[in-house]
Protein backbone atom coordinates (compact mmCIF):
# COMPACT_ATOMS: atom_id res chain seq x y z
CA UNK A 1 0.00 0.00 0.00
CA UNK A 2 2.82 2.41 0.89
CA UNK A 3 4.43 1.73 -2.47
CA UNK A 4 1.19 2.35 -4.34
CA UNK A 5 0.55 5.64 -2.53
CA UNK A 6 4.17 6.64 -3.04
CA UNK A 7 4.02 5.90 -6.73
CA UNK A 8 0.68 7.67 -7.21
CA UNK A 9 1.59 10.94 -5.47
CA UNK A 10 5.35 11.26 -6.03
CA UNK A 11 4.92 13.69 -8.90
CA UNK A 12 2.87 15.95 -6.61
CA UNK A 13 5.78 16.16 -4.17
CA UNK A 14 4.10 13.91 -1.59
CA UNK A 15 6.09 11.11 0.00
CA UNK A 16 4.70 8.00 1.72
CA UNK A 17 6.75 5.68 3.92
CA UNK A 18 6.14 3.11 6.63
CA UNK A 19 7.64 2.67 10.09
CA UNK A 20 7.02 -0.81 11.45
CA UNK A 21 7.78 -0.52 15.15
CA UNK A 22 8.76 -3.56 17.19
CA UNK A 23 8.16 -3.73 20.94
CA UNK A 24 7.50 -0.13 21.97
CA UNK A 25 7.04 0.79 25.61
CA UNK A 26 3.44 2.08 25.49
CA UNK A 27 0.54 1.98 27.98
CA UNK A 28 -1.06 -0.66 25.72
CA UNK A 29 2.00 -2.91 25.97
CA UNK A 30 2.33 -2.37 29.75
CA UNK A 31 -1.32 -3.24 30.20
CA UNK A 32 -0.88 -6.46 28.21
CA UNK A 33 2.25 -7.28 30.23
CA UNK A 34 0.40 -6.66 33.51
CA UNK A 35 -2.27 -9.13 32.37
CA UNK A 36 0.40 -11.66 31.41
CA UNK A 37 -0.72 -11.64 27.77
CA UNK A 38 2.74 -10.88 26.41
CA UNK A 39 6.28 -11.51 27.72
CA UNK A 40 7.79 -9.16 30.28
CA UNK A 41 9.88 -6.16 29.25
CA UNK A 42 13.02 -8.00 30.41
CA UNK A 43 12.22 -11.05 28.28
CA UNK A 44 11.45 -8.89 25.24
CA UNK A 45 14.61 -6.80 25.70
CA UNK A 46 16.81 -9.86 25.84
CA UNK A 47 15.65 -10.79 22.32
CA UNK A 48 16.47 -7.34 20.89
CA UNK A 49 20.10 -6.52 19.92
CA UNK A 50 19.74 -2.99 21.36
CA UNK A 51 18.83 -4.64 24.67
CA UNK A 52 15.80 -2.47 25.36
CA UNK A 53 12.27 -1.79 24.23
CA UNK A 54 11.61 1.00 21.77
CA UNK A 55 10.50 4.38 23.09
CA UNK A 56 7.96 6.87 21.79
CA UNK A 57 10.96 9.11 21.07
CA UNK A 58 12.53 6.45 18.85
CA UNK A 59 9.42 6.32 16.68
CA UNK A 60 8.84 10.08 16.89
CA UNK A 61 12.35 10.98 15.72
CA UNK A 62 12.02 8.68 12.72
CA UNK A 63 8.62 10.23 11.90
CA UNK A 64 10.18 13.68 12.17
CA UNK A 65 12.93 12.68 9.76
CA UNK A 66 10.52 11.19 7.20
CA UNK A 67 8.25 14.26 7.40
CA UNK A 68 11.12 16.71 6.91
CA UNK A 69 12.59 18.01 3.66
CA UNK A 70 15.73 16.02 4.53
CA UNK A 71 13.79 12.93 3.43
CA UNK A 72 12.41 14.52 0.26
CA UNK A 73 13.83 11.80 -2.04
CA UNK A 74 12.67 8.93 0.20
CA UNK A 75 9.30 7.47 -0.70
CA UNK A 76 7.73 4.02 -0.83
CA UNK A 77 10.23 2.74 1.75
CA UNK A 78 10.19 1.01 5.10
CA UNK A 79 12.40 2.04 8.03
CA UNK A 80 12.10 -0.62 10.69
CA UNK A 81 12.63 0.95 14.13
CA UNK A 82 13.26 -2.27 16.00
CA UNK A 83 16.61 -2.14 17.80
CA UNK A 84 18.07 -4.52 15.22
CA UNK A 85 15.55 -7.19 16.20
CA UNK A 86 14.84 -8.60 12.77
CA UNK A 87 18.42 -9.30 11.82
Amino acid at each position, binding site marked *: MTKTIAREYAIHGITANTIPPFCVDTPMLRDAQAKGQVPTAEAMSSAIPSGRLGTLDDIGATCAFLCSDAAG*YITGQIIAVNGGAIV
Partner: protein
Amino acid sequence: MSKFSLENRVAIVTGGGTGIGRGCSLVLAEHGADLVLAGRRREPLEKTAGDIEALGRRALVVPTDVTKVGECEQLVGRTLEEMGRLDILVNNAGGASTKPIDDWTEQEWHQVVDLNIGSVWFLSRLAVKPMLERGKGSIVNISSGSAFFGFPMGAPYGASKAAVNNLTMSMAAAWTPKGVRVNTVASGAVRTEMLIEDSRRHGVDEKALAAGNAMGRIGEPEEIAYAVLFFACDASSYCSGQSLWVNGGPRG
Protein backbone atom coordinates in the same frame (compact mmCIF):
# COMPACT_ATOMS: atom_id res chain seq x y z
CA MET B 1 20.18 19.11 22.15
CA SER B 2 18.44 17.99 18.97
CA LYS B 3 18.64 14.30 18.24
CA PHE B 4 19.84 15.31 14.79
CA SER B 5 22.91 17.10 16.19
CA LEU B 6 26.39 15.60 15.73
CA GLU B 7 28.22 18.12 17.90
CA ASN B 8 31.48 16.85 19.44
CA ARG B 9 31.49 13.79 17.21
CA VAL B 10 34.09 12.72 14.68
CA ALA B 11 33.15 11.01 11.44
CA ILE B 12 35.26 9.26 8.79
CA VAL B 13 33.82 9.43 5.28
CA THR B 14 35.55 7.29 2.65
CA GLY B 15 35.44 8.68 -0.86
CA GLY B 16 34.71 11.90 1.00
CA GLY B 17 35.99 14.32 -1.62
CA THR B 18 33.54 13.74 -4.44
CA GLY B 19 29.95 12.83 -5.26
CA ILE B 20 27.80 11.30 -2.53
CA GLY B 21 30.78 11.19 -0.14
CA ARG B 22 31.32 14.94 -0.46
CA GLY B 23 27.58 15.48 0.10
CA CYS B 24 27.74 13.31 3.24
CA SER B 25 30.80 15.14 4.56
CA LEU B 26 29.18 18.56 4.16
CA VAL B 27 25.82 17.54 5.67
CA LEU B 28 27.49 15.85 8.67
CA ALA B 29 29.66 18.95 9.17
CA GLU B 30 26.61 21.24 8.93
CA HIS B 31 25.11 19.23 11.78
CA GLY B 32 28.16 19.68 13.99
CA ALA B 33 30.54 16.80 13.23
CA ASP B 34 34.27 17.11 12.65
CA LEU B 35 35.34 15.16 9.59
CA VAL B 36 38.09 12.84 8.47
CA LEU B 37 38.13 12.65 4.70
CA ALA B 38 39.61 9.55 3.11
CA GLY B 39 40.05 8.86 -0.59
CA ARG B 40 42.64 8.08 -3.21
CA ARG B 41 43.07 11.57 -4.68
CA ARG B 42 44.25 14.37 -2.43
CA GLU B 43 42.91 17.37 -4.40
CA PRO B 44 39.15 16.74 -4.06
CA LEU B 45 39.65 15.84 -0.40
CA GLU B 46 41.46 19.16 0.19
CA LYS B 47 38.70 21.09 -1.55
CA THR B 48 35.97 19.46 0.55
CA ALA B 49 38.10 19.97 3.68
CA GLY B 50 38.25 23.70 2.90
CA ASP B 51 34.46 23.82 2.57
CA ILE B 52 34.07 22.01 5.91
CA GLU B 53 36.44 24.43 7.64
CA ALA B 54 34.39 27.29 6.19
CA LEU B 55 31.43 25.80 8.09
CA GLY B 56 33.48 26.13 11.28
CA ARG B 57 34.26 22.43 11.68
CA ARG B 58 37.57 20.60 11.70
CA ALA B 59 38.61 18.49 8.71
CA LEU B 60 41.50 16.04 8.47
CA VAL B 61 42.56 14.78 5.04
CA VAL B 62 44.01 11.26 4.96
CA PRO B 63 44.69 10.05 1.40
CA THR B 64 43.70 6.38 1.56
CA ASP B 65 43.21 3.45 -0.77
CA VAL B 66 40.53 1.61 1.17
CA THR B 67 41.29 -1.66 -0.64
CA LYS B 68 44.62 -1.74 1.26
CA VAL B 69 44.18 -2.97 4.81
CA GLY B 70 47.39 -1.23 5.95
CA GLU B 71 46.08 2.11 4.72
CA CYS B 72 42.77 1.52 6.55
CA GLU B 73 44.78 0.93 9.74
CA GLN B 74 46.60 4.23 9.20
CA LEU B 75 43.31 6.01 8.58
CA VAL B 76 41.82 4.90 11.90
CA GLY B 77 45.14 5.47 13.71
CA ARG B 78 45.52 9.03 12.46
CA THR B 79 41.86 9.77 13.24
CA LEU B 80 42.35 8.77 16.87
CA GLU B 81 45.72 10.56 17.16
CA GLU B 82 44.70 13.83 15.55
CA MET B 83 40.95 14.06 16.24
CA GLY B 84 40.97 12.21 19.56
CA ARG B 85 37.94 10.00 18.95
CA LEU B 86 35.85 8.20 16.34
CA ASP B 87 32.04 8.09 16.49
CA ILE B 88 30.85 7.58 12.93
CA LEU B 89 32.14 5.70 9.89
CA VAL B 90 30.56 6.24 6.49
CA ASN B 91 31.69 3.49 4.09
CA ASN B 92 30.99 5.42 0.93
CA ALA B 93 33.97 4.64 -1.34
CA GLY B 94 32.87 2.40 -4.18
CA GLY B 95 32.17 2.06 -7.83
CA ALA B 96 32.64 -0.07 -10.92
CA SER B 97 32.56 0.18 -14.66
CA THR B 98 29.59 -1.16 -16.60
CA LYS B 99 29.86 -3.77 -19.34
CA PRO B 100 28.36 -7.13 -20.29
CA ILE B 101 28.99 -10.09 -18.00
CA ASP B 102 31.23 -11.89 -20.50
CA ASP B 103 33.63 -8.93 -20.77
CA TRP B 104 34.84 -8.86 -17.14
CA THR B 105 38.37 -10.12 -16.45
CA GLU B 106 39.29 -11.98 -13.29
CA GLN B 107 41.32 -9.01 -12.09
CA GLU B 108 38.44 -6.57 -12.68
CA TRP B 109 36.08 -8.78 -10.66
CA HIS B 110 38.48 -8.77 -7.73
CA GLN B 111 38.96 -4.99 -7.95
CA VAL B 112 35.21 -4.38 -7.68
CA VAL B 113 34.76 -6.84 -4.83
CA ASP B 114 37.79 -5.46 -2.94
CA LEU B 115 36.56 -1.89 -3.33
CA ASN B 116 32.83 -2.30 -2.67
CA ILE B 117 32.63 -5.02 -0.05
CA GLY B 118 36.22 -5.79 1.03
CA SER B 119 36.72 -2.21 2.19
CA VAL B 120 33.51 -2.32 4.26
CA TRP B 121 34.63 -5.58 5.87
CA PHE B 122 38.16 -4.48 6.74
CA LEU B 123 37.62 -0.82 7.63
CA SER B 124 34.49 -1.45 9.72
CA ARG B 125 36.28 -4.07 11.82
CA LEU B 126 39.07 -1.54 12.52
CA ALA B 127 36.85 1.50 13.09
CA VAL B 128 34.46 -0.33 15.39
CA LYS B 129 37.14 -0.93 18.03
CA PRO B 130 37.20 2.58 19.54
CA MET B 131 33.40 2.71 19.23
CA LEU B 132 33.00 -0.56 21.15
CA GLU B 133 35.43 0.69 23.79
CA ARG B 134 33.18 3.68 24.45
CA GLY B 135 30.00 1.65 23.95
CA LYS B 136 28.62 3.91 21.27
CA GLY B 137 28.98 4.46 17.54
CA SER B 138 27.31 4.35 14.17
CA ILE B 139 28.48 2.79 10.94
CA VAL B 140 26.64 3.77 7.77
CA ASN B 141 27.34 1.95 4.52
CA ILE B 142 26.43 3.22 1.08
CA SER B 143 25.01 0.60 -1.20
CA SER B 144 22.91 0.85 -4.32
CA GLY B 145 19.54 0.09 -5.82
CA SER B 146 21.41 -2.41 -7.97
CA ALA B 147 21.60 -4.58 -4.83
CA PHE B 148 17.88 -5.29 -5.17
CA PHE B 149 17.51 -6.37 -8.80
CA GLY B 150 19.41 -7.97 -11.66
CA PHE B 151 21.80 -5.53 -13.31
CA PRO B 152 23.55 -7.39 -16.15
CA MET B 153 25.63 -4.40 -17.27
CA GLY B 154 27.05 -4.07 -13.76
CA ALA B 155 26.76 -7.56 -12.36
CA PRO B 156 29.84 -7.46 -10.10
CA TYR B 157 28.73 -4.05 -8.81
CA GLY B 158 25.20 -5.21 -7.96
CA ALA B 159 26.48 -8.41 -6.39
CA SER B 160 28.99 -6.55 -4.23
CA LYS B 161 26.37 -4.03 -3.12
CA ALA B 162 23.93 -6.81 -2.20
CA ALA B 163 26.76 -8.20 -0.10
CA VAL B 164 27.01 -4.84 1.69
CA ASN B 165 23.31 -5.03 2.62
CA ASN B 166 23.81 -8.51 4.03
CA LEU B 167 27.01 -7.67 5.89
CA THR B 168 25.10 -4.76 7.46
CA MET B 169 22.75 -7.26 9.14
CA SER B 170 25.57 -9.48 10.41
CA MET B 171 27.59 -6.58 11.80
CA ALA B 172 24.45 -5.08 13.34
CA ALA B 173 23.63 -8.35 15.06
CA ALA B 174 27.18 -8.57 16.42
CA TRP B 175 27.76 -4.99 17.53
CA THR B 176 24.35 -3.49 18.36
CA PRO B 177 24.25 -5.18 21.81
CA LYS B 178 27.52 -3.31 22.53
CA GLY B 179 26.16 0.07 21.42
CA VAL B 180 27.33 0.30 17.81
CA ARG B 181 24.58 0.50 15.21
CA VAL B 182 25.15 -0.50 11.57
CA ASN B 183 22.84 0.58 8.75
CA THR B 184 22.97 1.07 5.00
CA VAL B 185 21.67 3.72 2.65
CA ALA B 186 21.09 2.23 -0.80
CA SER B 187 21.36 5.00 -3.33
CA GLY B 188 19.20 5.40 -6.40
CA ALA B 189 20.42 7.34 -9.46
CA VAL B 190 22.16 10.42 -8.07
CA ARG B 191 23.79 13.35 -9.83
CA THR B 192 27.49 12.55 -9.45
CA GLU B 193 30.35 12.80 -11.92
CA MET B 194 30.61 9.01 -11.78
CA LEU B 195 27.01 8.48 -12.88
CA ILE B 196 26.91 11.26 -15.46
CA GLU B 197 30.14 10.11 -17.15
CA ASP B 198 29.09 6.47 -17.16
CA SER B 199 25.66 7.31 -18.56
CA ARG B 200 27.18 9.45 -21.29
CA ARG B 201 29.45 6.58 -22.27
CA HIS B 202 26.41 4.35 -22.72
CA GLY B 203 24.30 7.01 -24.47
CA VAL B 204 21.81 7.26 -21.57
CA ASP B 205 20.63 10.81 -20.86
CA GLU B 206 19.36 12.24 -17.57
CA LYS B 207 15.75 12.06 -18.75
CA ALA B 208 16.02 8.29 -19.14
CA LEU B 209 17.58 7.95 -15.67
CA ALA B 210 14.87 10.18 -14.18
CA ALA B 211 12.12 8.07 -15.76
CA GLY B 212 13.21 5.17 -13.58
CA ASN B 213 11.53 6.47 -10.42
CA ALA B 214 8.16 7.82 -9.34
CA MET B 215 9.35 11.40 -8.76
CA GLY B 216 10.64 11.57 -12.31
CA ARG B 217 14.01 13.10 -11.42
CA ILE B 218 17.44 11.89 -10.37
CA GLY B 219 18.57 12.52 -6.81
CA GLU B 220 21.12 15.02 -5.54
CA PRO B 221 24.08 13.91 -3.37
CA GLU B 222 22.71 15.73 -0.31
CA GLU B 223 19.46 13.74 -0.57
CA ILE B 224 21.48 10.60 0.13
CA ALA B 225 23.52 12.50 2.71
CA TYR B 226 20.47 13.36 4.82
CA ALA B 227 19.56 9.67 5.07
CA VAL B 228 23.17 9.05 6.17
CA LEU B 229 22.80 11.84 8.75
CA PHE B 230 19.64 10.14 10.09
CA PHE B 231 21.45 6.85 10.64
CA ALA B 232 24.57 8.60 11.99
CA CYS B 233 22.73 10.65 14.63
CA ASP B 234 20.67 9.77 17.72
CA ALA B 235 17.35 10.22 15.89
CA SER B 236 17.85 6.64 14.67
CA SER B 237 19.03 5.30 18.03
CA TYR B 238 16.68 2.29 17.78
CA CYS B 239 17.50 1.49 14.10
CA SER B 240 20.14 -1.11 13.32
CA GLY B 241 20.63 -3.63 10.52
CA GLN B 242 18.45 -1.62 8.13
CA SER B 243 18.97 -0.90 4.46
CA LEU B 244 17.05 2.17 3.37
CA TRP B 245 16.62 2.65 -0.37
CA VAL B 246 16.62 6.35 -1.28
CA ASN B 247 15.48 6.38 -4.87
CA GLY B 248 12.64 8.83 -5.53
CA GLY B 249 10.04 6.11 -5.17
CA PRO B 250 9.10 2.86 -6.89
CA ARG B 251 8.26 3.10 -10.57
CA GLY B 252 6.43 -0.24 -10.49
